[in-house]
C-alpha cells in the first residue's frame, strides 16, 4: 500500500531527525539546527500525506465492499459518505501511526511556542517506538469499518484522544527534563532512584509480580512463523482463543537480579539524596542496576532472534491450534519491550546526567521554561481528554443507549482525566509548582499507557471497545 510506504519514509525521517538533533546538541551548529527542523518537518508532512492516502485507500475499500454487499452503484452524497467514513485511525495499527503523528505534532507546536528543542529527542524517540509498534501489529490491512464505528463522532473523538494523549506524553517528557534540570529543587540522585522505581514497577507489573518470583520466569507469547506473518500459538478454551505463553529463557532470573540491584541502588541513592550527583557507592549501584536492566532487555531481544524452535510438553503441543515449529520473536512481547525500552531510555538519560551533569544541564532550557511548557501541555491534555470523554458519552448515548457504562476503555479515559485534574489542582491550590507536579506529570504517562493501551492489549477486562485490539 502506498500509505505504508509513506509511513516508512516518515519513520526514516524521524530517525534521521533524531540523529541530527543529537548531533546539534553536541556541536551546536545553526546549520544542524535548521537541518533538524527541516528533516522532522518534512517527515511530519510525509506522514500527513500518508494519512490522507490511507484515508483514500480506506475509502476505496469501503466503496468496493458496500457496492458488492448491496449490489448497487453508489453515487453523489451517498458515495461521499461511504468514501469518507473510514478515517485512518480506526484500528490499533492506525492508532499507533496516528499517535506518533500526534506526539510530533504537539512537539512541533511546543517547539515554536516554548523553544524546547531538547524535548524533541524524546518526542522523536517515542514517535519511533510508536511507529515501530505499529509495524509489528498484524492489522495493517484495511478492512471495512465495523457498524459501531460508522459514525461522524469517530473523527472528533479519536482525533482529540490522540492529540490529548500526545500532549500528556510530551508533558511527561518535559516534566522529566525539569526534574533533571532543576538542580536546586531536586537532586539527580532522587530522580535516578525514581527511574529505577518506575522500571521496577513495570517489571513487577508486566512480569506478573508473584509469578516472576515463584517461578523465576518471564513469560512471552509463543509464535508460529507462517512465512509472511507470525501467528500466536494457543488453544481454544470454549469459543475463546487462549495464547500460550512460554518462559523466555534466562530473562526471569535476570529480571529478579535487576529488581534486587534496583532496590539496593534506590536505598543507597535515597540515603545520599542530598548529593546532587551521586558519588561512590550509590553511583556504582545505579550503574549496576542500569547494566542489569540493559542485560534483561538485551536478553529478551536476543531470545527473540535465537529461540527459533521452542519445545513444549507433548500434551500442550497436541492441543495447539496451529502446529509447530514454534518460535519467539519481537512480537512475543512487543508491548512489554516498548515499555521496558521507554523506562530504559529514562535510565539512560539519567546515566548521562550523572556522568555529565553540567554539560547536559547547560544544554537544556531553563527550569522555569520547562515547568511552564509542561504545565501548558497538561492543560491541553486535560481539555482534550475532556473532549474525548464528552464526545464519547454523546456517541455512546446515540449508539449504545447509555452515555456512560463504566466500560473499561471509558473508565481508562476517566482515570487519565482525573490524573490531569489532580495535576492542575495540585499546582494551583497546593502550590505544588515544580517537583511534585513534575512527578505527577511523569507518572501521568504511564496512566495514559494503562488507560489507553492497557485495555486494548488485554491487561484489563474486555469491553465494548474491543475493535481496537489486535
Amino acid at each position, binding site marked *: 500500500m502506498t500509505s505504508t510506504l509513506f509511513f516508512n519514509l516518515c519513520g526514516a525521517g524521524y530517525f534521521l531527525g533524531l540523529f541530527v538533533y543529537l548531533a546539534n546538541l553536541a556541536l551546536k551548529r545553526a546549520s544542524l539546527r535548521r537541518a533538524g527542523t527541516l528533516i522532522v518537518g518534512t517527515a511530519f508532512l510525509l506522514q500527513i500525506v500518508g494519512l490522507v492516502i490511507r484515508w483514500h485507500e480506506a475509502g476505496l475499500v469501503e466503496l468496493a*465492499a458496500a457496492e*458488492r454487499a448491496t449490489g448497487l452503484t453508489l453515487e453523489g452524497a451517498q458515495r461521499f459518505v461511504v468514501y469518507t467514513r473510514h478515517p485512518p485511525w480506526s484500528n490499533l495499527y492506525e492508532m499507533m501511526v496516528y499517535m506518533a503523528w500526534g506526539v510530533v505534532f504537539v512537539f512541533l507546536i511546543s517547539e515554536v511556542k516554548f523553544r524546547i528543542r531538547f524535548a524533541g529527542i524524546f518526542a522523536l524517540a517515542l514517535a519511533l517506538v510508536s511507529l515501530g509498534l505499529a509495524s509489528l501489529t498484524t492489522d495493517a490491512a484495511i478492512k471495512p469499518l465495523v457498524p459501531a464505528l460508522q459514525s461522524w463522532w469517530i473523527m472528533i473523538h479519536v482525533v482529540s484522544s490522540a492529540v490529548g494523549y500526545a500532549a500528556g506524553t510530551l508533558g511527561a517528557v518535559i516534566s522529566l527534563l525539569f526534574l533533571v534540570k532543576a538542580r536546586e529543587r531536586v537532586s539527580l540522585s532522587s530522580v535516578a532512584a525514581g527511574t529505577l522505581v518506575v522500571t521496577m514497577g513495570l517489571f513487577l507489573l508486566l512480569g506478573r509480580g508473584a509469578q516472576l518470583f515463584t517461578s523465576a520466569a518471564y513469560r512471552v507469547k509463543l509464535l508460529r512463523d507462517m512465512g509472511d506473518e507470525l501467528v500466536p500459538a494457543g488453544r481454544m478454551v470454549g469459543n475463546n482463543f487462549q495464547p500460550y505463553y512460554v518462559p523466555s529463557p534466562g530473562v526471569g532470573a535476570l529480571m529478579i537480579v535487576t529488581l534486587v540491584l534496583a532496590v539496593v541502588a534506590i536505598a543507597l541513592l535515597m540515603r545520599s539524596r542530598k548529593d546532587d550527583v551521586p558519588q561512590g557507592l550509590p553511583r556504582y549501584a545505579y550503574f549496576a542496576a542500569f547494566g542489569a536492566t540493559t542485560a534483561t532487555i538485551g536478553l529478551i531481544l536476543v531470545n527473540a532472534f535465537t529461540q527459533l524452535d521452542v519445545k513444549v510438553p507433548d500434551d500442550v503441543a497436541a492441543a495447539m491450534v496451529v502446529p509447530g515449529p514454534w518460535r519467539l520473536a519481537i512480537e512475543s512481547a512487543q508491548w512489554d519491550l516498548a515499555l521496558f525500552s521507554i523506562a530504559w531510555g529514562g535510565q539512560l538519560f539519567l546515566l548521562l546526567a550523572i556522568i555529565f551533569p553540567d554539560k547536559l544541564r547547560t544544554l537544556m532550557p531553563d527550569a522555569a521554561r520547562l515547568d511552564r511548557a509542561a504545565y501548558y501541555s497538561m492543560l491541553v491534555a486535560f481539555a482534550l481528554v475532556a473532549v474525548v470523554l464528552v464526545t464519547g458519552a454523546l456517541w455512546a448515548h446515540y449508539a449504545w443507549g447509555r452515555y456512560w457504562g463504566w466500560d*473499561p476503555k471509558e473508565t481508562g479515559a476517566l482515570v487519565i482525566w482525573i490524573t490531569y485534574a489532580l495535576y492542575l*489542582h495540585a499546582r494551583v491550590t497546593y502550590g505544588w509548582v515544580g517537583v511534585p507536579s513534575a512527578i505527577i506529570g511523569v507518572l501521568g504517562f504511564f496512566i495514559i499507557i494503562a488507560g489507553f493501551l492497557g485495555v486494548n492489549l488485554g491487561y484489563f477486562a474486555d469491553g465494548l471497545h474491543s475493535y481496537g485490539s489486535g
Partner: protein
Amino acid sequence: MSSQPALTALDPEGLDLGAKPTTAIGRGYAAAWQVFISLRVTVVTLIVITAGCFVGMFFDQTKSYDEHVQQWATTPWKLQVFTFLEMYDVFASWWFGLFVVILLINVTACSLERLPKIWLDVWHPRPELSDEQLRGIRHSWRGRIAEGDRAKAEGLIASLLGARARTSTTGETRFAFAEKQRWGRFGVYVVHLGLVMVMVGGIINGKTKMDGLMMITEGTAGRLVRLRGPGNLPYVVDLGFSLRCDDFRLKTFVTGDVMEYESDLSVYDPAVPVKPAVKKKIEVNDPLEYGGYTFYQASYAPAAGDQLVQLDVGPRGGQRRTHSLSIGDKLTLDDGSTFVPVEVIEEFAGLGAAVRVQETSMGPQGPRTTSYVVFRQYPDFDREVRRGAYDVQFRGFDQQYATGIQVGRVPWVPFIFTGFVVMFVGMAMAFLMSHRRYWARLAPAGEGKLELVIAGAARRHQYAFGEEFERVRAKIVEVFGDGERTADRARALREQRRIAKLGDASKS
C-alpha cells in the same frame, strides 16, 4: 484578623467574612466545613475513585458474582475482601458511591467557600493604588517626572489603560484603573458547576435509569425487558406496550464480516387507538424513541427453533418463485400440486447441503407422490436430471433472526449534557481568559516633581502577562526613561511576611 487588609492586590484570601461560631453545634459545623473545603480531601477522594476505576477495569463488571468468585476467590480472605468491597459491581458499590458523594460535596463546598471572596474581589476592586498594594505587585514602573510633563503623563496613562479606564482624584493624586477579561476568574467555578451537574445527573440516573435488553424474533412482538440488577442478577420489567419486529436485515461483506444490520419496528400501544402507533426502521447509531424509552439496535442472534428452507418452484422452463418453508410445511400451487420439504441433509454424499422434497401433483393417473433430493450447490440438477413437470431449486436457508434491542431510559440525560456544555464554557473561560488589571497613579512628589506609578497584575498565564507588561513598560520607558529600580518581588514578600508576623506577635 478582620482588620487585616488583603495581602496582595489579587489575593483576597486575607479577607475574613464571618465571625467565629460560639455554640458547640456551630463549632462542629465549622470543623466539618473545614474538612469539606480541604483540598487534601479532594486529592484523597480522587485517588480512591481512581483506585476504584482500576478495580473496575481489572474485574470484568459484566460478569456475575459467581463467575468472579470461581475465578478469583481462591482463599476465604480473598472472598471476604472481594465481597465486602463489592468488586464484582464496584461502580455501584457502597464505598465508590460514598466517595463520589464526598467528591460532590467537596467540589460544592470548595466553590461556595471561595466564590464569595473572588466575587467581592472581581466586582469591588480597589481602583486607587496604595503603596501597600503596590508591594504585592510584580510588574510595575515607578519614577519621578517633571511637573511640566503632567499632560504627557496623563496622555500616556489614557493610551495605555484605554478609554474604559476608571479615573478618580483624591486630593492632588490622580488614579486610573482598568481591567480585562474579569469573567475569566469565574471559569473554574463554571467548570465545577458543570461537573456537579454531570455528577448529580449521573447519581439520579443511576437510581432511576433503565438499561435493559429485548430479544425479539422477526415477526413477533415483545413487551418485557430483561435487566440486570445488583450483582448482575437478572429481572424483568413490563413496558406497558408491545414492540414488534416486522423484519430484520443483516448485510454482510463477501468475507462474512458484518456490514450493517437494521430492524423494522412497530409499536402497539393499548393506550393509542392507532395500530401500530409508530413504525420505524432502526439501525446502529439511529434509535427509536417512544414512551420515554429509547430503543437502540444493539445486537442480533439467530432465532432458536424453525430453520426455513428457501425453495424456488416453477413450471419446467418457466418462471420460478421463491418460497420460504419450514420443514413439514406444505406449499400448494394454483393447480393443486403440493411440495413439502421433509428433511434437511447437511451433507449429502460429498455434494453439500440438500433438501428432500415430497411432491404431490396431478398426473394422468390421478395424484401421484414422488420424493427427491435437491442440492444447494447444484441448482440446475433438478431441471437437468430429474426432468419433472416442475423445477425445484434449493436456494439455501432463510435464517430467522432475533433482533437485540437495547432499551434505555435515562431521564436526566439532557441535564447531564447541559452540564458538559457548562463545563466546556468554563474551561474556555478558565484557560483562554486571563483577568488582568492595570493601575496608574500620578501624585505630587514635591520639588516640582510628580511621581508616576503604572502597575499591572494577572491571575493566570503569568509569563504571557510578563511579556505583555514588558511592552507596556517599553512604551513608558520611551517617554520617561527607566524610572526607579522597583523593589523585587522577593523583597516585597519578605517585608509583607515580617509585617504579618509583627501583627500576630502584637496580638498574642
